[in-house]
């Protein structure tokens, strides 16, 4: 399958700062791809190169088989640095932004009205942006990125400032886009959302890809020795456990490679612990993120 987005060995420096240092990844049609990384890792610079806003010093970016600036009308973008015209009406802004993407005015207006209805803002179509709540503005910003019905959406922190209800709504919207065959590049710090939505990810740290591939496989790799135990009595001292956390009787235990989960179970039973649940688990993406970023492990791109 031909990738929708192909990034090959791109580099970008600003003065002495090497912001992006040989980043490569591919995104395939109809998938939600997570582009992750700590602050200052080079994500935004990578995204800007993906959008044709910045030109890489070296390497290549292809979107829909062409240079980004040649397909900008087929791509939607929700930047991290974003806002709207506070004194303009919501519908007018969405129509204008779709027109800038080459859509005819009437088409743009109709589509904007439909999208506003979809996110429950039909009644606010003629309100000025400054009259909307922050959450409403966030939704309008997301709509601005997709109002021209793009084939590829690059969304940087789309969940910022959303309450749980709206967060769910936006997630549904993203899944609808995915179902409609759109390709989505999602950048966020909310790892639980990445786990819920993304099939593949790339983790960038210090300008380099440090983790790349299918999320499930990555989690499997990292979760080989993680066990969740729910116990009604406290756990005894367990020298075989490398690290553990406890919350409301639920223990999260990380074992070194030489200790198996079966050995742990035996030890707990022998120690007379009242076990209510025992599960060999996946390492949360957040933990993988922290571990990788802190340099505890590195996974070669697959």
């Amino acid at each position: 399958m031909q990738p929708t987005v192909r990034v090959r060995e791109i580099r970008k420096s600003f003065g002495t700062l090497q912001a992006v240092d040989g980043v490569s990844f591919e995104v395939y049609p109809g998938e939600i791809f997570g582009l992750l990384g700590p602050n200052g890792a080079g994500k935004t610079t990578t995204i800007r190169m993906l959008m044709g806003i910045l030109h890489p010093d070296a390497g290549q970016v292809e979107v829909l088989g062409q240079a980004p600036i040649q397909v900008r009308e087929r791509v939607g973008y929700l930047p991290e640095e974003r806002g709207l015209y506070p004194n303009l009406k919501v519908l007018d802004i969405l129509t204008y932004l779709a027109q800038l993407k080459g859509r005819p005015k009437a088409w743009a207006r109709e589509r904007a009205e439909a999208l506003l209805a979809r996110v429950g803002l039909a009644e606010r179509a003629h309100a000025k942006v400054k009259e909307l709540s922050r959450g409403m503005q966030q939704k309008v910003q997301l709509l601005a990125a997709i109002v021209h019905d793009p084939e590829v959406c690059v969304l940087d922190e789309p969940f910022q400032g959303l309450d749980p209800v709206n967060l769910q709504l936006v997630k549904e919207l993203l899944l609808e886009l995915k179902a409609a065959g759109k390709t989505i590049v999602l950048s966020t710090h909310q790892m639980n959302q990445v786990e819920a939505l993304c099939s593949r990810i790339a983790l960038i740290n210090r300008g380099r890809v440090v983790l790349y591939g299918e999320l499930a496989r990555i989690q499997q790799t990292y979760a080989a020795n993680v066990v969740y135990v729910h116990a009604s009595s406290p756990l005894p001292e367990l020298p075989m456990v490398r690290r553990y956390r406890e919350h409301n009787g639920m223990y999260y235990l990380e074992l070194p490679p030489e200790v198996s989960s079966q050995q742990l179970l035996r030890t707990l039973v022998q120690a007379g612990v009242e076990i209510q649940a025992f599960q060999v688990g996946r390492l949360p993406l957040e933990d993988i993120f922290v571990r990788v970023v802190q340099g505890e492990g590195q996974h070669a791109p697959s």
Partner: protein
Amino acid sequence: MHLRKVYTIARHEYTVTVRRPGFIVLTATVPVLGLVVAVLVLVAGRGLLAQVDTLVGAMEKPIGVVDKSGYFSPVLPAFADDFQRYEDETEVYRAVDEGRLQAAIVIPPDYVQTGRVYVYSPQNVFQRVSLEDSHRLRAFLAVHLSRPWVPEEVLVRLSEPLVTLTPVASRQETAGPWASFTQVLVPYMVAILLVISVFASSGYLIQGLAEEKENRLVEIIISSVTPMEWFVGKVVGLGAAGLTQMGIWMLTSLALSGGAMLALVAVSPIPWYRWGLFLLYYALGYALYAVLQAGLGALGTSTRETQQIAGLASVVAFVPFMLSGLVFTVPDAPLVRGLSYFPLTAPTMMIFRLAVFSVPTVDVVVSLTLLVVSIPVAGWIGAKLFRLGILFYGKRPSLAEIWYALRSA
């Protein structure tokens, strides 16, 4: 460059700007002020006009003369309309009191020795002073004193030594008395209009430029259009808004002045093709400044800073005003010619020169060519600065960064 996108941006900028309360208020200021002045003139001015009328009417009446020195009797025919002889003071004072005379002068017997003349006037001090300064009165005294020694026809000429002062230059021969006045006034007006337009529009350019930056829309826009499309759309849209305002001001002024402004143009001795050149210089100058200010303005981080940076550019348009003395006295001075070629000062400088003097064709051709070429060049530089400026949030690019951006074309 997609012209449809440029048009969309220009239209958006234009409609947003002309709907701004600030724009509407400012645009309405001139007509409203004009109307207020017109009403004031109509209401309060009536009384004032009547007073002026009385004063002027009084000054048109003759002056009574009581001659005790013997030099002024009889009054020479050349002065008969303005000076009437009276035998004694009582009679002449009565004539003044009854309004038949503007004033009365009594020339005492020792006038030749003292030069003293007595005046009787019911009017104010101002009139006495103006009488003392009156060339007609001085001529009356001088001509009559010299009567015994000077032939009659010379006396007549002495009474009015200069009737007309006719210029020798052939192109001015047909010009009326308003010619010289309009010749200087008109280019000043056109040039001032240019500078005002540049300043007024820069305000809208700046507001329009700062808007996307302050509202963090930059990345959204440039993911849809090229910086050049955005730049051109903005300059055209915001420039058009500025011109709309100027147009409204001019039309209102025309209407309120009852066509006086048109009359001024009509009596002006400036040939029609020069008006064409004025308009051309105006349009090109406006375009150049708009393009430059937009580029420079994008470098600012806030509306205030943007305003300061863009303001720098418009100050240059003022330079020819500062040098207008030189322009009108030495129109071919090297500095004046140099500034006529320099695109930023060319419009104002050439408007001044074309109005008053015959400018060498080479100056017109060179300055127009340079001006025309400078606009795309300024546009290119402007778009580069714009591209650089829009991506810098909350921080101003350094000179090195600006230089780098211009070089990496």
